[in-house]
């Protein structure tokens, strides 16, 4: 995956967020303040606009996302996703592609960023419960010698499972923690937006694969 694919990923995700804004709003209304849809939509719309004139390298593309989310998104998701993309950008300094064996470390950087920013260790019913399992999944899939599309498909699957699994968890961090036991039975909005992020990655690579074959 190179900068062109990364840009396509971010652009597709921006579209997905715009389409799924209502879902994120609904999830956050149940256990938060109902703004996760608006927060994400505002941030990723700005990313999409910024990307139009962007001509830099891979690391810079991630930095652009980070900066844009940090400056545009009110709420927890701004600094959380902003930190994820900042750490990834730093891990990608000097690189032109993300190869199958790079994903594990990249995701690890992102997950650690969330852990530090959000002061979570796992089990708190946040997006971190999705992020935290991805580095190992990437590691194992890469070790099995799978290709990129298989790898990100696996990531997308696991992210979806983990996001859905937050439904049965009790929140102990973030706004949902105020609800205590009443947070059980509702999916975490940030976990959902994370699952959507990896599904957008999968479909971006799947389309590219189709397009590559056609060429």
């Amino acid at each position, binding site marked *: 995956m190179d900068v062109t694919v990364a840009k396509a990923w971010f652009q597709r995700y921006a579209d997905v967020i715009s389409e799924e804004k209502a879902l994120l709003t609904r999830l956050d209304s149940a256990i938060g303040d109902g703004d996760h849809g608006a927060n994400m939509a505002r941030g990723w719309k700005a990313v999409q606009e910024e990307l139009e004139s962007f001509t830099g390298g891979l690391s810079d593309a991630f930095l652009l996302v980070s900066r844009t989310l940090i*400056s*545009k998104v009110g709420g927890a998701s*701004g*600094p959380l996703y902003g930190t994820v993309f900042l750490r990834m950008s730093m891990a990608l300094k000097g690189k032109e592609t993300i190869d199958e064996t790079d994903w594990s470390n990249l995701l690890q950087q992102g997950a650690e960023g969330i852990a530090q920013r959000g002061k979570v260790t796992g089990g708190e019913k946040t997006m971190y419960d999705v992020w935290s399992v991805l580095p190992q999944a990437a590691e194992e899939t890469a070790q099995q010698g799978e290709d990129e599309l298989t790898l990100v498909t696996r990531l997308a699957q696991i992210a979806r499972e983990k996001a859905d699994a937050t439904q049965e968890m009790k929140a102990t961090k973030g*706004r949902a923690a105020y609800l205590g036991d009443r947070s059980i039975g509702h999916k975490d909005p940030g976990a959902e937006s994370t699952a959507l992020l990896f599904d957008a990655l999968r479909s971006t690579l799947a389309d590219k694969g189709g397009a590559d074959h056609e060429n």
Partner: protein
Amino acid sequence: MKTDAALVLVSHSERLAEGARELISSMAQDVPILIAAGDGEGGLGTRSEGIVEAVQSANAEHVLLIFDLGSALMNAEMASELLAAEGHEVTVVDAPFVEGAMVAAMALQVGKGVSEAIKEAEASRQQLKKG
């Protein structure tokens, strides 16, 4: 010229921050108090960019960030990392929003140092209000 210390009130709500400032400034008249509040579009929220701008415009040797809830903390810490990289001295204070800001401001008002102001603000949670 730089002032010694300033407070930045980081809140989800502009009105909350402005109300806290008017209450505090009625006592701590000489302490600069800035506000970083709201989502930047009239709604509730906090933005690290807004915090960065407030700290930069404070033009103080040391800036104390006092935050209301949840994501205000994350944005405050995010902002202080960005600001530390620019050489700013910024401390995120772990204190009740209104009570802690008042104590910090009054400590500065009577000429105490920044670390004393932080210590007193962080200790303010222990003080029973009905005492």
